[in-house]
């Protein structure tokens, strides 16, 4: 028995070391806020990029604002410091790159249980408002957040802990998820990606049902629901026409309009006609992000088509 227990202990040593490392580094700030500035920056570089859901959900718990942002990588550009600079509005950005509508719904349902929300800026677009974009990456991260054991035993925590440790020791910059393309190639790559989504488009009855429920709750609790249709370059807008989705696009905007206020930037205009305003047909650049923030936060309509929810 002693031999067995001894062997078991020796066998567990790597795991105990790993867990100790994870607790010490705490890549997602699960156990505490984290005061070490250098470490915090590394966590943003590495842990945030490894699992943005987990990182942002934990951060939201620590510093919740009553205004939140949901959506994908484009809404992610509308970060809290820009909001602070432009309109002094305090927001928590819970948008996740590559996030689907299901992700946003799950995140909203999860945080609304514990926090009081007053306003939601929700980035929506035709290719995410689709019955074939159902992938749920939020739930596994929500599960991890709920259990400290899962936090210690999941691959995001230990890969982040190891990378952060390595980066602290060797002082090298770890660059995760840099696309290996030139700008022109990436332009075409993004065009193709979104085209694929559009090609498989189907009307998302379930999403509309879920959103209707959410809009109802927002009305009850006096929460302002604001939908933002981000601008995409006209090259991409042409694809909607190419795939015969003009009717669906119209209906999508009508659906949104029936649930909340809508700021629609996605039509041929001075922003979307100019390639210089975009890093790729899907992602607008920094100056455009500021324009969008100014418009939705101060409600001074300049570039978008605005519809208000009829009372």
């Amino acid at each position, binding site marked *: *028995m002693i031999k067995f227990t001894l062997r078991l202990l020796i066998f567990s040593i790597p795991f105990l070391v790993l867990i100790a490392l994870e607790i010490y580094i705490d890549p997602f700030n699960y156990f505490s806020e984290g005061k070490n500035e250098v470490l915090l920056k590394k966590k943003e570089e590495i842990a945030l990029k490894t699992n943005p859901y987990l990182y942002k959900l934990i951060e939201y718990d620590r510093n919740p604002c009553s205004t939140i942002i949901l959506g994908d990588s484009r809404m992610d550009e509308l970060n809290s410091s820009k909001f602070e600079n432009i309109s002094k509005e305090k927001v928590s950005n819970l948008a996740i790159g590559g996030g689907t509508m299901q992700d946003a719904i799950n995140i909203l349902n999860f945080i609304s249980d514990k926090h009081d929300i007053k306003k939601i800026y929700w980035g929506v677009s035709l290719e995410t408002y689709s019955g074939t974009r159902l992938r749920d990456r939020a739930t596994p991260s929500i599960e991890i957040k709920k259990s400290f054991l899962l936090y210690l035993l999941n691959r995001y925590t230990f890969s982040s802990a190891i990378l952060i440790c390595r980066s602290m020791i060797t002082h090298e910059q770890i660059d995760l998820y840099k696309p290996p393309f030139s700008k022109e190639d990436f332009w075409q790559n993004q065009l193709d990606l979104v085209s694929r989504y559009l090609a498989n488009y189907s009307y998302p009855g379930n999403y509309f049902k879920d959103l209707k429920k959410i809009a109802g709750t927002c009305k009850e609790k006096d929460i302002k629901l604001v939908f933002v249709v981000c601008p995409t370059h006209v090259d991409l807008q042409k694809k909607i026409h190419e795939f015969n989705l003009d009717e669906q696009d119209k209906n999508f905007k009508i659906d949104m309009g029936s649930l909340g206020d809508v700021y629609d930037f996605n039509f041929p205009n001075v922003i979307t006609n100019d390639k210089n305003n975009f890093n790729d047909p899907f992602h607008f650049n920094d100056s455009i992000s500021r324009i969008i923030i100014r418009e939705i936060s101060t409600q001074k309509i300049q570039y978008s088509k605005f519809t208000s929810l009829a009372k």
Partner: protein
Amino acid sequence: MVFTSLNFLLFFPLLAIVYYITPGKFRWITLLVASYFFYINIKPAFALLVSGVTLSTYIFTRLIDKAGTESGKKTLMVINIVLILLPLFFFKYFAVINNGILSLLDSYKVRWPLPEIKLLLPVGISFYTFMAIGYTVDVSNEEIKSEKNIGIVALFLSFFPLILSGPIERANNMLPQFKKQINIDFALITQGVKLMLWGYFMKLVVADRIGIYVDAVYGNIGQHNGTSLVLASMLYSIQLYADFGGYSLIAIGTAKILGIDVMQNFKRPFFATSMSEFWRRWHISLISWLTDYVYTPLSFTFRRFNIWGIVFAIMITFLISGIWHGAGLTFIIWGLIQGSFLSIEALTNKRRTLFQTKHNLNKRIWYIVLSCIVTFVLFSASMVFGRAKDLNDALMVYSKIFSGIIHIPYRDGYTMLYSFIGFTILMLKEFRDEYYPDHFLLFENKNVIIRWLSYYAVIFMILYFGVFGQEKFIYFQY
């Protein structure tokens, strides 16, 4: 509490410690308490049901032993079987039949007195009911003496490693083990842990990963093309095996750690060269139960019809198997398809064997490989009925597959890569087990360093490639 929940990972080691601290004579009590705790943790009301089945089975088996005549024994046996089938019938099939009649009559604007029923299926009911029936029949056939101690019977029917999804065990294997003095055996415990480890690998790394793809395609059949559906259907067979096979390994490993030997439930089914052989390798506990308690009596009764008696017995057996799996029309169709496969093989057996021997095909590698592939494809084709949520969906899948056009299948980057890695590792291991059982040993290697490195490698793969956050095993609603 499912095997992949953290609660279980905490509960089980504690239980094992308490179990071995308990003096040998009373260890079965620890197991009984733990099993009921495990079950109550899922839903307290269901524990009442299994204790009801236990009580009935106990009383009737004792009465059977005391009955003097064979017909007396038979009568008591039939009464108990009917009694314990009632809850199974009620929970599993009544709602479906009731709602079916309701909607049928509704379309003719006729009122049906009962409302639509939505019932939650008691977990494990299909498993312990079958175990209880088997025990009753065995006592009636004088294969085993009825157990005097009701606690042991209760433990047999609620034994927590088995209660969720089997293997469906027999009284003559389990009852003696519960009663005997089990000494702590660290070699057995280590073996059990290894089985559990591999089971977790199969479930978390292979099954759940593949499931992401299969769910995406089957969740939106209308949107996906025939090629994606073919791929998803074949992947579903693999997912089902990895899920259920992995789960069985965890159950067997858990029991082994407690010193209890439980039967093997899967034996590398994708190396079967015929559907008959497939069913000797897939869900072995169910098939052997059905063989002993349904097929054998039936085929014996109808043996004067020779091969047609056998065909009849096969069809009924697999019809019951289909119904056991689920209450929908798709399951019945699935069962009948399996029955047809086996009937055709039985009917053509002589001719096929002659052909194979004449051309010495059994030794040819290409023939073996081809047979495995054909068997796998046939099984996957039938599993469309197991996966599609109703008949309409299943038929839509088939019409899309046979539309004749080959498309580019739905692609999902990381899911497919990780699935492929996991699946390859699994198949390599099974290939080794099937054809080179004493070579290339990793978990069983004599060198402790190689053994430990392989444990670390598998644990790493589970933590790194495993899918967490989904806790439902496919065979869970049974």
